C-alpha cells in the first residue's frame, strides 16, 4: 500500500470499518511511513478532542440527589427483605440437616430398649450365656484315654 491508498483509508481505519486485509496492509504502511503515521495521529487527536471538548461531570449534589432517589425507589422494604430471606434457596446440606433434626430428637427422647441394636448411648452389663447340661465339677476326661 502506498500513501495515495493509505490516506483516504485513515478515517475508516480509526473507526475500525476496514476489511481485515486492508487494515493489516494499512497498519504495515503506517509502520513504515512517517508522514501517514503523523496524519493518522492528527486524525486520532482531532476525534479525541471532541470527547475532551464536551467532557463534563455532573455536580456532587446531582449525584447525591440521584443516589437518594434510586435508594428510595429500589431499596427493599423490611417486609420484602424478610420475604426474600424466607424465599432464599436452601442448600442441599441445609435440607439434610433440617430433616435430621426430628430424628435426633426422637433418639434423645426414646427409651434405650426401643432403639435399634447398637444405638444405645451407654454399655449395660449382660449376663453370661447359659449352657444346659454342663457341670463344671465333672472332669472333661476320666484319665483313661486308651
Amino acid at each position: 500500500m502506498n500513501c495515495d491508498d493509505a490516506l483516504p483509508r485513515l478515517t475508516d481505519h480509526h473507526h475500525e470499518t476496514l476489511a481485515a486485509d486492508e487494515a493489516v496492509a494499512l497498519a504495515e504502511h503506517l509502520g513504515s511511513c512517517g508522514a501517514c503515521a503523523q496524519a493518522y495521529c492528527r486524525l486520532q487527536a482531532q476525534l479525541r478532542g471532541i470527547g475532551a471538548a464536551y467532557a463534563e461531570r455532573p455536580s456532587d449534589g446531582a449525584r447525591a440527589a440521584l443516589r437518594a432517589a434510586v435508594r428510595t425507589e429500589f431499596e427493599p422494604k423490611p417486609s420484602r427483605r424478610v420475604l426474600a430471606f424466607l424465599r432464599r434457596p436452601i442448600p442441599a446440606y441445609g435440607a439434610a440437616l433440617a430433616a435430621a433434626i426430628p430424628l435426633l430428637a426422637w433418639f434423645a427422647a426414646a427409651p434405650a430398649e426401643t432403639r435399634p441394636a447398637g444405638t444405645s448411648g451407654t454399655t449395660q452389663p449382660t449376663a453370661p450365656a447359659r449352657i444346659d447340661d454342663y457341670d463344671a465339677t465333672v472332669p472333661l476326661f476320666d484319665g483313661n484315654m486308651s
Partner: protein
Amino acid sequence: MSGAGTSDEALTRAVRDGDMAAFDVLYARYEVRLFAYVRRFIADRQHAEDVFQDVFMTVLRDRSFDPERGRFAAWLFTVARNRCRMAHRKGSRESRALEAMPRAEEAAQPRYAEADRVRRAMDALPEPQRQLLLLKQVAELTYREIAAVLGVAEGTIKSRLHAATSAFRAQLAKGDTP
C-alpha cells in the same frame, strides 16, 4: 456482583434489587458520557442535571426495558436523545443548543481555546452528523448501539460516520485558516 467487569445489564438488575454498590459502578461508567451528551443540548447546567437524573431514573424504573434482551447503553442514550429533543420543542431559553458555547472565562485559556475550536467545528455541522459524532466520541457507543439509538442499519452508521468525520475535519481546517 458489582465489580468493574460486570455488564451494564447485570448492574441494572442489581440496582433494581436495591444494590447501591451496583448503582455506584453504573453511575461512574456513564456520568461523564451521559452528562456531556445532555449538556450539548441544554445550556443551563441545573436544567441539564435535572434531565440527566430524569434519564437515569427513567431507564432504571422502566420495567419494559429488559436487561436480558436489550443493551443498557443504547436504551439510556435513546431516552436521553428523546428528552433533549423534548426540551428543544419546549423552546425554553434553557434548552437552546450550545451554539458556540459562550464561556468567556474558559476561552481565555489555551486549553479551553482548543475545546472552543472543536465545539465551533461541531456546531457548524448538520445536526445528523453532529449527533453521530457525539454518540461515537462523547457517548462512546458502539456502531450497534448507535444504530439502535438512531434506528438505522449498522452499515449505514459506518458510512455516515465516515462522512461526518470528514466534514468535521474540514470545519476544523476552515477554522484554522484566518
